C-alpha cells in the first residue's frame, strides 16, 4: 500500500504543479461566487423593477384626481376611504375595503343582471350594497325567495353579506383584531356546516389566536422594507393554508391577507386530491408552528425552476442554486481525466512512469483516485466559497427558518435543510464522476485528451437532452437504461425524465454496470497495451 500512496502523491503533485490546475481553481471559485451572485442580482432586479410602486403621496394625489372621474360607486367609495385614511394600495385596510365594496358588489351585480334587460345594464352597474340589489331585483320581477336562494348560494361558498357601514369604523381605527372578529362573526352567522365555517374562518381565527397582524404600513419605495415584506413567508404560508382548507371544504376563501402575487411555489403544487391537500395543510401548519418558513424541498435545484418559483431570494435559494456548480466541477474532472493518460503518452513520460517497480494496475488506480480527489477538492472548494459568498450576500437571517419538510399520510418528516442540499451536492458529484470516467476511459484507450474531453463534455451537456428527446418525443422507453438517464440521481429523484418504473435503486444499478464496463475497458487499455 505504501507504493500506492507514493503513486497517489506523485500524481497529485503532477496535477498541482500545472499552471492549468491553478487556473481551474480560480474558475471554480469565480463560478461559485457568480452562481450565488445570480440570486443576489435577481433579488436586486426584482426589488428595483418587479414591485415598483409610486410613493404614498403620489398614490393619494393620483387617487384624488381619479376619484372625480370614477363612475363606479363601489370603487369610488374605497378610493375615498384610501384618501381619507392615507392607505396605500398595499395596506391591508385597502384590501379589506375592496373585498367589502368591489367584490361583493360584483356578486350582487351578477345576480341582478339576470333580471335586467340589455338597456338596464347602466342601472345594474350602480348597485353597490345588498339593499340596492334587493330593490332592483324586487322591482324587476324577482321575488324574496329568489334573493333568499342567492344568499343561500353565497353562504354555501362561505360568503356572507358584509356591511360597509359597520366595517368602515373598524378599518378606520386600523383594528385588525376587530376586522378578524367581524369576519368570523359573519361566517358563524351563516347556515352551513361547521366544517365549512371553520375552513373559511380559519385564517382569521389563527391570526387572532397567535396574534399575527396583517402586513401593514409598508413604506412605499423603501426598498429595504419591501424586501422584508417579500421575505415574510409567514403571511403567505397562512394564506396558502387558508386557501387549501377552503379548497378542501369546497368553499371560496376571502381574498384578504393575500397582499400581492405571493403564491409560493409549494402551494401551487399541492392539491390534486383530498389526501394530498390534507398533507399539504398539515405540513404548512407544522411549518407555522415551528417557525420554519422555508422548505428546501420546494426548491428544485435547476436554475429555471427557481426563476419561476417567484420572489424568494434568500440564503437558501442561493445555496440551492450553488448545487449547479457540479457542472463546473464536472468540467474540471473531465479535463483532468482527459489529460491524465494522454498527457503521459504525448509527453513520452509514460515510459519512465512504467519502468518502476509497480504494477500498471496500481498506476491506473492511482490515476483514477487522483481524478476523484481533484474533483472532490474542487467540489468542497466551490461549496465553501459559495457558502461564504451566500452568507455575505444574504446574511444569516433565514438560516434557522428552513427545513426539509414533507408530509405523507399525515406524518410530517422534518430533516435538516443543510443536509438535504449537501446531499444534492454529493449526488451531483456522482453524475460528474460518471462523465469524467468516460473521459478517463477514452484517455486511457486513445491517448488523446482532445477526444476524451470533447466526447465527455458533449455527453455531460447533451445527455439529458438526448434522453428527453428519446422519451418525450419518440416515446422510447429503453432510453431509461442509458447512462445519461440514470447518472443524474437528482433528476431521477425528481422524475425529470418521466420514466414510470425508474427508481433510485435501478439508477444506481445502471450506473454501477456502466462504471464497471468503462473501468474494465480503461484498465485493459492501459495495462495490456504496449508502450
Amino acid at each position: 500500500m505504501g507504493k500506492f500512496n507514493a503513486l497517489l502523491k506523485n500524481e497529485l503533485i503532477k496535477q498541482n504543479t500545472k499552471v492549468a490546475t491553478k487556473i481551474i481553481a480560480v474558475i471554480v471559485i469565480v463560478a461559485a461566487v457568480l452562481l450565488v451572485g445570480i440570486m443576489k442580482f435577481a433579488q436586486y432586479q426584482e426589488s428595483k423593477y418587479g414591485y415598483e410602486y409610486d410613493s404614498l403621496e403620489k398614490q393619494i394625489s393620483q387617487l384624488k384626481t381619479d376619484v372625480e372621474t370614477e363612475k363606479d360607486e363601489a370603487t369610488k367609495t374605497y378610493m375615498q376611504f384610501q384618501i381619507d385614511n392615507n392607505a396605500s394600495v398595499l395596506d391591508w385596510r385597502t384590501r379589506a375595503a375592496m373585498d367589502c365594496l368591489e367584490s361583493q358588489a360584483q356578486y350582487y351585480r351578477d345576480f341582478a343582471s339576470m333580471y335586467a334587460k340589455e338597456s338596464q345594464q347602466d342601472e345594474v352597474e350602480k348597485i353597490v350594497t345588498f339593499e340596492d340589489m334587493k330593490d332592483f331585483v324586487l322591482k324587476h320581477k324577482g321575488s324574496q325567495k329568489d334573493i333568499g336562494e342567492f344568499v343561500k348560494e353565497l353562504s354555501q361558498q362561505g360568503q356572507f353579506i358584509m356591511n360597509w357601514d359597520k366595517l368602515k369604523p373598524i378599518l378606520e381605527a386600523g383594528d385588525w383584531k376587530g376586522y378578524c372578529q367581524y369576519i368570523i362573526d359573519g361566517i358563524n352567522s351563516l347556515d352551513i356546516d361547521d366544517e365549512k365555517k371553520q375552513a373559511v374562518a380559519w385564517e382569521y381565527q389563527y391570526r387572532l389566536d397567535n396574534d399575527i397582524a396583517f402586513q401593514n404600513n409598508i413604506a412605499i419605495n423603501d426598498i429595504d422594507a419591501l424586501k422584508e415584506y417579500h421575505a415574510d413567508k409567514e403571511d403567505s404560508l397562512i394564506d396558502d393554508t387558508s386557501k387549501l382548507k377552503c379548497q378542501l371544504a369546497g368553499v371560496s376563501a376571502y381574498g384578504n391577507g393575500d397582499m400581492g402575487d405571493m403564491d409560493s411555489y409549494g402551494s401551487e403544487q399541492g392539491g390534486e386530491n383530498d389526501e394530498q391537500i390534507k398533507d399539504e395543510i398539515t405540513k404548512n401548519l407544522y411549518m407555522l408552528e415551528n417557525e420554519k418558513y422555508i422548505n428546501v424541498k420546494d426548491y428544485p435545484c435547476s436554475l429555471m425552476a427557481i426563476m419561476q418559483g417567484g420572489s424568494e431570494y434568500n440564503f437558501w435559494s442561493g445555496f440551492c442554486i450553488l448545487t449547479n456548480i457540479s457542472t463546473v466541477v464536472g468540467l474540471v474532472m473531465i479535463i483532468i481525466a482527459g489529460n491524465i493518460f494522454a498527457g503521459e503518452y504525448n509527453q513520452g513520460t509514460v515510459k519512465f512512469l512504467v519502468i518502476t517497480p509497480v504494477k500498471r494496475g496500481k498506476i491506473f488506480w492511482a490515476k483514477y483516485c487522483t481524478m476523484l480527489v481533484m474533483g472532490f477538492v474542487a467540489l468542497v472548494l466551490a461549496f465553501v466559497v459559495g457558502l461564504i459568498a451566500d452568507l455575505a450576500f444574504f446574511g444569516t437571517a433565514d438560516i434557522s427558518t428552513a427545513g426539509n419538510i414533507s408530509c405523507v399520510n399525515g406524518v410530517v418528516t422534518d430533516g435538516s435543510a443543510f443536509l438535504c442540499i449537501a446531499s444534492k451536492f454529493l449526488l451531483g458529484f456522482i453524475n460528474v464522476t460518471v462523465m469524467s470516467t468516460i473521459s478517463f476511459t477514452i484517455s486511457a484507450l486513445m491517448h488523446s485528451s482532445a477526444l476524451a474531453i470533447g466526447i465527455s463534455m458533449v455527453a455531460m451537456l447533451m445527455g439529458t437532452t438526448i434522453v428527453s428527446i428519446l422519451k418525450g418525443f419518440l416515446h422510447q422507453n429503453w432510453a431509461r437504461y442509458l447512462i445519461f438517464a440514470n447518472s443524474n440521481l437528482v433528476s431521477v429523484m425528481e422524475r425529470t425524465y418521466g420514466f414510470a418504473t425508474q427508481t433510485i435503486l435501478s439508477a444506481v444499478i445502471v450506473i454501477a454496470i456502466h462504471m464497471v464496463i468503462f473501468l474494465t475497458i480503461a484498465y485493459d487499455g492501459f495495462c495490456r497495451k504496449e508502450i
Partner: protein
Amino acid sequence: MSNTAVKIKNLYKTMGKYEILHGISFEAYEGEVFGFLGPNGAGKTTTIKILTGLTSVDEGEVSVAGFSISKQFEKAMENIGAIVENPELYKHMTGKQNIMQFARIRKVSKERVDEVVKLVGLENWIDKKISKYSLGMRQRLGLAISIMHKPKVLILDEPTNGLDPQGIKLLRDILKNIAHNDGMCVIVSSHLMSEMENMCDRVGIITNGNMIGVYSIAELISQQNSSASFMYNVDNAKKAFEVLKDIENINFCQVDDQNFDIEINSGEPKAVVADLNKLLVENDIKLYTVSAKGSNKLEDVFISLTEKKDENGEVAQIG
C-alpha cells in the same frame, strides 16, 4: 565470469503482421558494459522494451537479477534502471520534483538523490524547470533517475543520440565507472559501432530480429586482423587476374583496367602480398603501387556481419 544480471532466452515477438524478433538469446553479466548493436529496425528497441516491461513478450524468457519479468515483475523492476528512447520528463516540473517522483516510488533517500544529482553534475540546475533543460541535461537527469536506486542492471537505449562529443565522453566515463567499479551491468544499445568500441566490453549484434552473436571487443579486433585488403595499381588488370586466379584464400576484385583490390583471408597478409607482388612482376605485369586499403575498422566488421546475415536470411527464406 561474474554473476548473470540479464538472461534472455528465445525471445519471439510479433507486432501485427510483422515478426520482429525471431528467437533472441543472450546473457549480460554484472560489472560489464554490454553493447547491443544493430542497424535501425533490427529489433533493439523492442528487445529493450520487453526487458523493461513496456512491451509484452509472445514467447521466451526474460529474467533480471534472477527474477522473471513476467512472473515477478515488481522484483525484476526493482533491479532495473532504464532510459528508453528519449529521456522524457515532466516539463512543467523542476528537475528536483521530477527526480523525487521516482525516488518516492523506489524509496530512495534524499541524501542519495543529492548524491546522484552531483554525480551527473546537475546540482546547479536541479531546481529549474525541465522545459529549460538542454537535451544533454535531460539525458543526465534521466541517468540520475535510472541509477539512484543502485539497480543491478542499467539499460540505455541509444544514449548518445543528440549528444555532443563532450557529452558522449562524460556519459562514457560515468557508464564505465559504474560498471567496472560498482559492478552494475550496463546495457547500451546503438547502431554505431564506433561508439561501442570505446564504451563496451562485449557487444551483441542483432539484425532483422536475429542475434548474430555476442563478441568481446578483443574478438572483433582479431577478426579484423584476420582479413586484409590491398589496392593494386598495374598496367593490365585483366592479365593480373589471369595470373592470380588460381591462388587460394584471396579474393580478387577488379575496379577498372588498371586497378584491382585483393582481399586476403588467411595467413600472414604481408607475406601473401610479397608473394603476390613477386608473381605479378615475374609475369611481366608492371606493378606501379600497392597500398593497404584503409584499415578495416570494427564498423566494417559490423556491417559485413550484418550483411552476411541478411544474405543467409534470404537464402533461408527461399529454401
